[in-house]
């Protein structure tokens, strides 16, 4: 796979001197879903705005489909669809007209059949002649997505697509995103819901204070960075952790029926084999073993903490 969006040494400083982006480098592969995680004010929206042409970079380059977003902005922007974070819609227009407007703005010839398909896919078809202002918040967000898709983009940016959206609609949105990916669209979404990134992303990028801390395959990230926990269930309760096992820093459950062992999957040796042997030597009989992996949330919180 090749990079469809390539960001190099991108820096953005505002007039007041605030540095929203500090030399960001990022390659986005064609066809993937990349989730950009970061706390509020991390620079997620600035990064997206700069790639899409809403904000002018202070230095650095961005290419989309090989086209420089500054020098060949028409070719670059034609490939991009943007769903902004705020619900910015012309209230007095009908859904169909506002979606048609977006398509025309991108220079595409009118194609109502195509637009109707998009509206159907987003469950908006029966609202197509309704004025935007009569729609619910969730519906308006779908209209924004329909607008972004109206000109057949190859790259779709979703800036906090599920902020303030109820759980059911969020799940619907994830399905829409999965369908889009299946149709070959590259998707970049920003979110501060970690479960969202965990549920739909192929790769996860973590951004904080204008810097990308890491970009990694979601599964790799979780297995590499994740701390694991081994739960040892015992056949008979123990009053305290045997002194012979002190080196393992085990924690005893209140009922004395299980012991917890924390280990790092990144470490060369997890210590599991010796622990199991030592347990036996200490005369403890095991009933069952369970491992549990830390979630993306734990990883994220750990990473962001490190940089603050």
């Amino acid at each position, binding site marked *: 796979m090749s990079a469809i969006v390539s960001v190099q040494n991108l820096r953005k400083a*505002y007039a007041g001197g605030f540095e929203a982006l500090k030399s960001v480098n990022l390659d986005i592969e064609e066809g993937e879903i990349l989730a950009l995680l970061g706390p509020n004010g991390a620079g997620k929206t600035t990064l997206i*705005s700069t790639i*899409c*042409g*809403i*904000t*002018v970079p202070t230095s650095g380059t961005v290419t989309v489909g090989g086209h420089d977003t500054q020098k060949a*902005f*028409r*070719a*670059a*922007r*034609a490939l*991009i669809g*943007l769903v*902004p974070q*705020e619900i*910015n*819609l*012309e*209230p*007095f*227009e009908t859904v169909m*007209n506002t979606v*048609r*407007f*977006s*398509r*025309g*703005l*991108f*220079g*595409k*010839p009118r194609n109502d059949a195509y637009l109707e398909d998009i509206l159907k896919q987003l469950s908006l078809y029966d609202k197509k002649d309704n004025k935007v202002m009569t729609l619910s918040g969730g519906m308006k967000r779908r209209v924004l997505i329909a*607008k972004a898709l109206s000109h057949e983009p190859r790259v779709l940016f979703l800036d906090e697509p599920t902020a303030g959206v109820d759980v059911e609609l969020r799940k619907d949105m994830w399905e829409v995103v999965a369908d889009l990916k299946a149709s070959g669209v590259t998707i970049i979404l920003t979110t501060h819901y970690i479960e969202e990134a965990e549920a739909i992303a192929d790769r996860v990028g973590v951004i904080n204070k204008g810097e990308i801390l890491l970009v990694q395959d979601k599964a790799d990230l979780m297995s590499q960075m994740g701390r694991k926990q081994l739960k040892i269930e015992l056949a008979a309760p123990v009053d305290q952790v045997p002194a012979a096992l002190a080196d393992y820093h085990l924690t005893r459950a209140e009922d004395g029926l299980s012991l917890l062992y924390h280990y790092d999957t990144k470490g060369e040796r997890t210590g599991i084999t010796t622990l199991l042997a030592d347990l036996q030597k200490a005369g403890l009989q095991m009933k069952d073993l369970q491992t549990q992996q830390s979630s993306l949330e734990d990883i994220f919180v750990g990473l962001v903490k490190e940089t603050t």
Partner: protein
Amino acid sequence: MSLNAIWTIYVFEMRRFFRTITQSFISPVLSTALYFVVFGAAIGSRIDEVEGVSYGAFIVPGLIMLSVMTQATTNASFGIYFPKFIGTIYELLSAPISFLEVVAGYVGAAATKALFIGVVILVTSFFFVEIQIAHPLAMIAFLILTCVSFALLGFIIGIWAGNFEQLQLIPLLVITPLVFLGGSFYSITMLPPVWQTITLFNPVVYLISGFRWSFFGQADVGIGASLFAIALFTAICLMVIWWIFRTGWRIRQ
């Protein structure tokens, strides 16, 4: 340049106009009728002919200019201010178009609306007074140029304005007084000599004078000066817009 994008913006803006067509249509017709009642019938009957033209007919070009200038300015300023206000400007900025398409779409639509209102007033005035148009082609050209140049000015105001109050400020405090004092309802030759000289610094004088010339074949200032004035005004507006485009002033961070 994307003609498709210009057309899209143009159609979208015109639809806003047609949504309020009753208001857009009735308002100029009504105000024109009122002007004719007040100035034409009530006061005009006591005024002799001005430069050989009946007073009622004499004020027609000024009335048209008054509405066209204010309408072109307010329509264009509102047209580009509204997307800024509701946030939909993101779409204009992220579309594969340059500022050129944006200006052409918004200014074109605002100028069309003003032109429509100008024509409505002209047609209305036929019901009240007898007018002959000496130079119809020049009249149309002047009307279109005025619509476009003031729509350009309105566009600049819309980009500049940070709130609705500022949006109203220039049409209210600058354009309306300049038009009223620019000889809409009188010939500047009717003024004392000192005021005649001062009035020549009012750019609107040249526009109204030129427009009136196209109706009656006579003018306060030479037609050449009028043409030069409107060309200069258009050029200044275009230069300001070019500068906005280069710097992204108040649009792109």
